[in-house]
């Protein structure tokens, strides 16, 4: 299985929010409270054990290995056939209204079958989903429609980069296939990029375990304050999202 992933290089990020705005523009995400697929949290300035830090958490769905949002979906399951665009191979799975794609690793929603119950939103430890209550599938008694980052698959299928990647002014977002050794994403992981892990829930920056100075800040991050705390260990976050820790930062 191919797994799409995104590196966010925090050393490059200046917290300009262009990613969040580009995403909202591309997918016409309404501006109501909590409605977002893509966000920037501004963290600090605050003291950490490595000195003062002021950094940003540009976030989106992690397209987890074992997504907490998928098994909680109460929609009736249907048989869905997935096709690998490269090999033409197909695979049929019983899926509810949300699933993890067996060929590209992304977590997707069938919005036409979503009940808008909010179970997936509540299950996500990152606050990556919201339920748009301005729309609903009334024919099935829906109360809203869940929405989240699709890794811009409709764009990627056309050969484009995700909107947030294309717009990033400092090229801090790098998108590609995690398990393709030739990808830039894989190169970052070899250099020491780390997965996003929920180490703590706090509104101030925490340092990465082996980060050596204050430029190497911050992979472990807050959750949005409105979310319930989840235990990281139970979730098996494989997350496609890795945050560069720069353990292997080159120095002349």
């Amino acid at each position, binding site marked *: 299985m191919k797994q799409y992933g995104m590196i966010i290089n925090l050393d490059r990020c200046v917290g300009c929010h262009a990613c969040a*705005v580009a995403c909202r523009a591309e997918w016409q995400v309404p501006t109501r409270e909590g409605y977002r697929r893509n966000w920037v949290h501004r963290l600090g300035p605050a003291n950490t054990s490595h000195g*003062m830090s*002021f950094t940003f958490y540009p976030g989106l769905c992690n397209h987890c290995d074992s997504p907490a949002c998928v098994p909680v979906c109460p929609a009736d399951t249907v048989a869905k056939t997935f096709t690998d665009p490269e090999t033409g191979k197909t695979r049929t799975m019983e899926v509810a209204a949300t699933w993890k794609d067996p060929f590209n690793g992304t977590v997707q929603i069938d919005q036409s079958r979503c009940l808008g119950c909010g179970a997936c939103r509540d299950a996500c430890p990152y606050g990556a989903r919201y339920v748009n209550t301005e729309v609903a599938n009334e024919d099935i008694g829906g109360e809203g429609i869940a929405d989240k980052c699709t890794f811009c698959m409709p764009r990627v299928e056309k050969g484009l980069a995700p909107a947030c990647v294309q717009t990033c002014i400092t090229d801090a977002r790098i998108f590609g296939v995690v398990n393709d050794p030739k990808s830039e994403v894989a190169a970052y992981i070899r250099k020491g990029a780390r997965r996003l892990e929920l180490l703590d829930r706090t509104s101030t920056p925490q340092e990465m375990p082996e980060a050596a100075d204050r*430029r190497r800040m911050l992979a472990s991050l807050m959750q949005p304050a409105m979310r319930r705390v989840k235990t990281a260990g139970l979730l098996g976050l494989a997350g496609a999202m890795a945050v560069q820790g720069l353990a292997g930062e080159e120095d002349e």
Partner: protein
Amino acid sequence: MANARAMLLVGSHIGENIHVSHVREFIAGLQNGAKLVVVDPRFSTAAGKADIHLAIRPGTDTALMLAWINYVITHNLYDRKFVANHCQGFDALKKEVSGYSMEWAARICDLRIEDMKAAIELLAKASPQVNIHPGRHSTWYGRGDVGRHRSYAILTALFGAIGVPGGIYFPSPVPLGHVECVAEKSEKVAPIEPEVSLREDSAYPFSSNFGTVTADIIRAINTGKPYPIRLLGINGVNVIQTIPDPYETMKALKSLDFIFCEEIMAGETAIWSDIILPDAVYLERYDGVYAYDGLTPYVTVRQPVVEPLFEARSPYWIAKNLAKRLDIPGFTCPDERAFIAKELEGVDYSLSQLNKEGGLVTLPADPYRKPDKLKLDTASGKVNLQVEDFEDEDLDPIPKFEPTPAPPKGYARLIYGRSPVHTFSRTMNNLWLHNEIPENKLWLNDRVARQLGIKDNEVVVLENQDGKRSNPVRVLVTPGIRPDAVYMAHGFGSKSPLLSRAHGKGAADGFMMTRNEEDPFMGATSKRTNFVRIILGGKPLAIPDLCPVPDEIPRYTIKSA
């Protein structure tokens, strides 16, 4: 910056100040391994990426710079060959700065000597690939601003960082065709030439090269001197938000007979205008050819992607039709496209050819100079470490440190900067941008907040030294600002109810700026010479004095009512 091996930013907050190509260069430099020193009373985004952050006492930057210059000279950290061949005035400089020791500067600037030394050594080690960027919005204290900027340039020259990669580079001029907007002055409506010109007869000896001093215009409206001004036309500037001391500006606007503006936003200035000419937004209009003369010279043209909505018209159309109705002939081009075509002739392009090549063409750059080819645009062709033209005007030929007054007891200095998602005061009402950052926050030192009992996110009001009060603003409690200063991003706190989202959200820094000094060289207005205290629940709270002020720095005293 991408080629620098070390960078120095003094109060420049690139990263929050989103000048896109500059931010890209800055990040490229850091990714290439450049060291970064940030001097700022605040822990900015740039400070968060710095190797050394010096949280300097506001108003003492020139003291640090002069002590560094002295240190570089006395410790032989300067480029002797460059100074010998390409600088004049070195001996005078050496003598002038000899009194500025690191010990003295440490006390004045409230910094540790070890940190100051580490920073200057770090910069010196990278020379000549040292980038000392002056930043933007850098008129802070009036009197000393030009000297402060010159001290950056002097240090740059001592490092030999001129005409070399990573240092100051030479522009690569783009030879656009020259088009006169109006061919000849109308004989029907001949302007009355006043005996005294605001621009030419300014009290500031070097201002006329840059235009008319804004504060002079406001003063002239309010005093009627040197001549009365009865009408104002304003093009795309919200003067009430952008010019310090909006109370004087508002007084001036009220006294006029007629104001018209060309605008896209119903900001304060627009709603005070008699007539608003609706401007086309950037997606609806052509602008003149944009030519960039930096490291990657290029030519491009802003072009409409949609027709203007409603009654909006392009600036060129508006100007031309105003002229027509005033019976002023002489516009040289029928429309913008013809104007652009003439400009593009200079680089042998037509608009359709430019568009065929993607809408942007790059040109060769010539930014660097070999030592034997290095010639500056000065009489001697060298770097003037000492400027005689300044001496002729009774201004310091070599920068001196003259302290700006420290905050009065119970007050903190107000510092302002930019929000990364917003542009001046013009985007706060944009649905998407407002949604990202709807209001500014008052950065307040955590120790000060603790002593005052103010919690993070609590809403306070500011009162400045002249008793002017701000809109309510939320507090960001942080160790990332010195106790003797508070900070907020500019452009918020709109007073225009027609900006339905932005109205009343956050506080406007400009409305706290009633005490301004103009620099004696060009008349640039100081923007860090105002002091505020906090009003919580209607009660004034005195900012505790956590940073003792040395005797050399006077405190500002508040005139008692």
